[in-house]
């Protein structure tokens, strides 16, 4: 009995350690995508330095150690990232920004290409699992940016939008170690001060800044805690080429 308990404890610790290595605000949230290139780590949406603009940040492949692990991390050409914008609170996207990596045929540099915000037609504005499938219409291209490295920082702008893709310091902060121990029953509360599990780690980020006018008008009443403020419902999706 005692032996079994020890094994259970070891097994539990193993799970906690594994989770610590891989988790973020959404990272390793589900078994079939954990640690893969479609595993979204984090998503942010906020007003830009120019208040007429909105900024979206998507992080993938979190908890990269500095140096080689960061330098060798690459975006996957088979993974399409999509930022969805619902501006009438029916939980169905009305605008979509599509993002994918390709090698520039002239310069042979790795670029990130940005499409949209595409205005979706009313026929696609139904609650359907069809929205889990996507294709890219190259005519919607808004711009591209050379993918940055730790030392070669590249941004670009076109069509009123700004673009970035590359390794960044992971903006997420959380004492995930202690949280796991609380969930596992070995601790009863957080320490003060806590320890940021994500301190000193990097992530691959995609940042796009767009004019709010390109998102359409938000809808009043979606957020009951800001009932007079027009709101967009936004979310990010990662889709793999079949």
């Amino acid at each position, binding site marked *: 009995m005692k032996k079994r308990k020890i094994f259970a404890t070891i097994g539990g610790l193993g799970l906690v350690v594994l989770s610590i290595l891989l988790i973020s605000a959404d990272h390793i949230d589900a078994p079939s995508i954990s640690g893969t290139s479609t595993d979204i780590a984090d998503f942010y949406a*906020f007003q830009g330095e120019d208040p007429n603009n909105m900024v979206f940040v998507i992080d993938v492949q979190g908890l990269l150690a500095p140096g080689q692990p960061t330098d060798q991390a690459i975006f996957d050409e088979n993974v399409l990232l999509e930022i969805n914008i619902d501006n009438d609170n029916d939980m169905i996207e009305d605008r979509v920004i599509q993002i994918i990596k390709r090698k520039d045929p002239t310069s042979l540099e790795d670029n990130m290409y940005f499409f949209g915000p595409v205005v979706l037609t009313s026929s696609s504005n139904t*609650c359907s699992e069809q929205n889990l499938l996507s294709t890219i219409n190259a005519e919607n291209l808004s711009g591209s940016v050379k993918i940055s490295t730790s030392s070669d920082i590249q941004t670009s702008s076109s069509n009123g939008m700004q673009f970035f893709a590359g390794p960044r310091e992971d903006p997420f902060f959380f004492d995930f170690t202690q949280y796991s121990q609380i969930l596992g029953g070995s601790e009863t509360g957080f320490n003060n001060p806590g320890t940021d599990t994500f301190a000193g780690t990097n992530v691959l980020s995609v940042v796009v800044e767009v004019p709010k006018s390109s998102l359409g008008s938000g809808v009043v009443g979606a957020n009951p805690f800001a009932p007079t403020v027009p709101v967009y419902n936004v979310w990010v999706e990662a889709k793999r080429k079949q």
Partner: protein
Amino acid sequence: MKTYKYILIFTMICTAFLFVECTDADDNGNVLGIVTCDDGIQNGDETGIDCGGALCEPCLGSLDFSGTFIQEDQMGRPGINVIFGTTGMKDAFNTTVPCQMTAAFQSSFQSNLLVLNPLYTTNVLGLDATAFTQLLSKDVLWVAQTGITTYFNGTEILTGRGLSDDVIDTSLLLIFGGPTGTDNPILTSDFVPSNDASFSNSFPYVVGPFTN
């Protein structure tokens, strides 16, 4: 006759200059005056004919964007599937469209909330377990079209998510803090109030990676 010959030579020279101007062979964009992305020539800082550079659309060349892409992951608010997703249902959550999420996952989210905090009644937003998990199971992030965008800054509530927002403390407060936010004080903050690097106020806002 001699005069006619000079006129002819003069005309030829002028015509030659016209021809040179029209071809814009020096490619400096300084003859026609205005470089545009639809003038049919590679000029300015374009890297192809009417493409590339700072002003024109990127040169697509032979780039292939074909194919169908199928969803594997999604995220709106931070930590939703991580905290409330049920073992065996997390992959399904990632491949469910938001308009179908509440019907599919609200009840299991509510069960998980009550596992995390068996004494949950309401939280500081006045949401009972059903209302709270109805809100969370629709995994979209609200972002205000105008004004301050923050997960929570003491005044604005769920109007976006900025880089420096302590989304973990907000989440812990709503799960464990009870109706006044004072319940379970050792569970309502992880006491990590900020990131270990400062953010930029300018694009791209997130800062450079740590290096060895």
